[in-house]
């Protein structure tokens, strides 16, 4: 099987690759979102804890 045959998927290339592209996009997004969110949460919590300790003093 040649590379161009593989890409064309027997004429169904557009369907197969758009399906794979979409699925991979959604899966990757679902890894990126919690990674970024974690940074945001940690930053917010740091500020929260600092504000708490300031109040205690």
């Amino acid at each position, binding site marked *: 099987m040649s590379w161009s045959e593989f890409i064309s998927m*027997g004429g169904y290339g557009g369907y197969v690759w758009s399906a794979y592209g979409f699925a991979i996009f959604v899966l990757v997004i679902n890894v990126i979102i919690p990674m970024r969110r974690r940074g945001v949460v940690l930053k917010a919590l740091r500020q929260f*804890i600092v504000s708490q300790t300031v109040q205690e003093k």
Partner: protein
Amino acid sequence: MIYKKYASPKNFYPLAGRLIPWLGVLTVLLLAVGLYWGLFVAPTDYQQGESYRIIFLHVPSAWMSMFVYVIMAAAGALGLTWKTKLAEVLASACAPIGASFTLVTLVTGSIWGKPMWGTWWVWDARLTSELILLFLYIGFMALEASIEEPRRAARAAAVLALVGVVNIPIIHFSVEWWNTLHQPASVSKLGAPSIHPSMLVPLLMMFIGFKLYFATVVLMRMRYAILEREKHTRWVAEVVGTKAQ
């Protein structure tokens, strides 16, 4: 008791942190081998040609869309009955991931339907009940987001999730109960699958890969959700404090 020990957010947090990298590596390995097998090794389907290769995404994500829902509802029930904080966090973390799998199922199914059925969409039982599943996930997230107090939000969303469980057997049996364009199951728990091993093996690898993927991303979400929930506690202050330096 080991369950009690790790159900406490304080112990769960570092445990999840240790598990995530291993689960992540396993996920990537399985999905890579599954994709390679599905795209390069599995033979061409004699009826559907190469278009059938969408099955390696569509069917595992459809299974996952239902599996994640059941986990979400079960965690919701656990949160309702025993007020387990970790269960509430789990249910909440399941929703966006389950919604993603449902969306992937609907979109890949639609893309597959166009060349095979000649249409992107039909309002038949299988497709409609899967679309309802997406709305249930979205409803769960919307309801949870609309209530400020986290415990009350979790309880309300859990009730919605439990009511929606009725949709799961409807999705599963829809191809048997109603006449539909959708093809019947290729793999069933009872009886031999109607699919050749050369196609079944990559399908199951993708399914296990998706399960590991789910475990990875759900733990990632639960970890920071727990920090937020427990922000008044000493252990969170310690965790955040050491991270700050």
